């Protein structure tokens, strides 16, 4: 029976969600594997583990629950060990490093911030900032929208201006929030965002961090800013 690992905590964590339902169908009960100063949060792995919604959610829920009771190093989804003994061997081998990370992450949570443009608002800005684009747009409008070539020409120029603004606004978001967090880390590459950044924030400063996000929203109403958290510190385990 292979062993699925959710995360690693200190042996003295005290509030690990044992017996909680984990991955699999039916959900395999969560249990612990102890070694030295460390404990791994595990369950039996199903025969065929695939990145399905149910199992991704179980992974996230187990970690959220464990993280509420003390520091936990979250594993990336889908790490399977041959057995409990192999998990112990890994804990023994890296004990010092894991303890150091757990220490560093104690009392801290991750907030992931994603920003996009409100399309209408950013187009308005781009036109407001550039008389030439405004004139082009106006000329198209007067001629009933312009020819296909006219539209392409304008659209290409607009797209370039919007991209330029994406870069500026990404920097704006990053700089505005940097000081409200202890650490930051670019989010994984994914499309559809002008900024996707994770921040490590002490639990007691969480309200302050959220307030800073709200200030960014107020100052830059052409931005749509989403905050997700508090999360297990996925981006700060390294």
């Amino acid at each position, binding site marked *: 029976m292979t062993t699925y690992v959710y995360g690693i905590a200190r042996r003295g964590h005290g509030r690990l969600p044992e017996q909680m339902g984990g991955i699999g169908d039916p959900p395999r009960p969560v249990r612990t594997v102890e070694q030295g100063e460390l404990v791994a949060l595990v369950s039996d792995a199903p025969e065929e583990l695939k990145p399905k919604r149910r199992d991704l959610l179980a992974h996230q829920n187990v970690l959220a629950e464990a993280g509420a009771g003390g520091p936990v190093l979250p594993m990336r989804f889908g790490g399977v060990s041959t057995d409990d003994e192999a998990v112990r061997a890994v804990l023994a081998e890296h004990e010092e490093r894991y303890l150091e990370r757990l220490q560093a992450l104690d009392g801290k949570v991750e907030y992931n911030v994603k920003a996009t443009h409100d399309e209408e608002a*950013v187009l308005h800005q781009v036109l407001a900032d550039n008389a030439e684009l405004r004139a082009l747009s106006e000329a198209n409008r007067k001629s009933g929208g312009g020819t296909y070539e006219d539209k392409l020409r304008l659209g290409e120029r607009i797209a370039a201006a919007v991209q330029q603004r994406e870069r500026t606004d990404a920097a704006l978001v990053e700089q505005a929030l940097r000081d409200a967090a202890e650490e930051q880390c670019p989010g994984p590459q994914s499309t559809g965002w002008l900024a996707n950044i994770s921040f490590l924030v002490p639990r007691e400063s969480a309200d302050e961090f959220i307030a800073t996000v709200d200030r960014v929203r107020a100052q830059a109403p052409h931005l749509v800013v989403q905050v997700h958290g508090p999360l297990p510190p996925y981006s700060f385990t390294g």
Partner: protein
Amino acid sequence: MTVVPAQQGGSGGTSGLYDVLELVLDRGLVIDAFVRVSLVGIEILKIDIRVVVASVDTYLRFAEACNRLDLEAGPHRNPGLPDLVGDVTESGARGKTKGALSGAAQTISDAFKEARDDGERETKPRARRTTSRRKEEQE
């Protein structure tokens, strides 16, 4: 404030899986000695956004959008005033706003939403427009 309590309670809540999916799949500790589950079918959703931007579709869409834009407010007006972007300014973001450059792209979460209705199916990329999903729930 987009913090939703965890289903199991506790202060380790999150905003819903689709909002943090890429963190669960791309971040977190990896142990070399362990076998990794194949993520085929998820990773290919990472489209390079520049491909999307430099497209005729985007250009035409922008041109059309500018055509409809009300610039009567004048170039020197502070852009993004409430009447221009009404629902964006309401406590963050609610409604059907779209990133200007993500029109033809598909985000991971978008594909994931489709799979939500079918827990037994793996996520598959589909060509459809992105709609940003967001929640406004107070803790």
